[in-house]
């Protein structure tokens, strides 16, 4: 136990504060369901469609966005509420989605992911015949 603690201390001191990896920020999301699909919208201000990555890996949907155009070295921070350069969030998704038809778009810092449901999973109206 003590050995593990000293090891952790050693690695922490080796890292200079400047290169310590920042934890990614968690973007707020809205999730909305329609008959045909699930729509996920995430706020990632500063991210472009080139710097965003959406992927599905073993029924986990990952979204990662990098802020482009961060202020350079000549800008001195005066007041900072948002500290970070990357957003990341992930969700598990069920098998009812047609993974080949997933669409993602990025506009004004908002990521929209459209997850259509497999045809067979869509609710079917049951017709009631009058005898």
């Amino acid at each position, binding site marked *: 136990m003590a050995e593990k603690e000293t090891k952790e201390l050693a690695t922490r001191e080796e890292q200079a504060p400047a290169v310590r990896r920042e934890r990614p920020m968690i973007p*707020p*999301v*809205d*999730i*909305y*369901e*329609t008959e045909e699909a699930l*729509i996920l*919208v*995430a*706020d*990632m*201000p*500063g*991210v*472009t469609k080139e710097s965003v990555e959406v992927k599905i890996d073993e029924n986990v949907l990952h979204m990662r966005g990098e802020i*482009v*155009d961060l*202020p350079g070295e*000549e*800008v*001195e*921070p*005066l*007041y*900072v*509420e*948002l500290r970070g350069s990357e957003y990341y969030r992930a969700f598990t998704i069920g098998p009812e989605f047609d993974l080949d038809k997933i669409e993602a778009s990025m*506009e*004004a*810092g*908002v990521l*929209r992911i459209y997850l259509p449901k497999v045809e067979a999973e869509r609710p079917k109206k049951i017709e009631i015949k009058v005898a």
Partner: protein
Amino acid sequence: MPINWGLEFFDPFREFERLQEEVDRLLQLTSPFIPIRAVARGTFPVINIGETSDSVLVYLFAPGVEPDKIDLSIEGNILSVSGERDASRALKVEKVDPSRYYRQERFNGRFTRAVTLPESIDPSQVEATYQNGIIKVRIGKKEEKKARRIEVKAS
């Protein structure tokens, strides 16, 4: 204080720096003195302010807003922003039924915020752009307040 130990066992300066960092971090959350216009977490838009030698830069993190629905103004050295965001627009669904939301974390509705800028700014030198969901406001500093490089001459 065991100052007669080797530095690798106890460096009082490093300990002090580390303590200072911890205290700084704590104070950021619970300082008794915070700007009077400071807001709690979860407000919209999030704001960062920085300065260069000749201007002050304000970044308003406002994704998915329509620029003409935003009111940005400067009075003295106070920058105010207000507007409205309809969060459901981003869904691109024709008719939004509120009961179909599983999760609603994104800000929706009217917002208004104001921040105090340094005294060095010149309110007549303002320009703002909206890109990738960030409103970037650049305010020039008064001529006499711009930082000047001082050349060190070899004697």
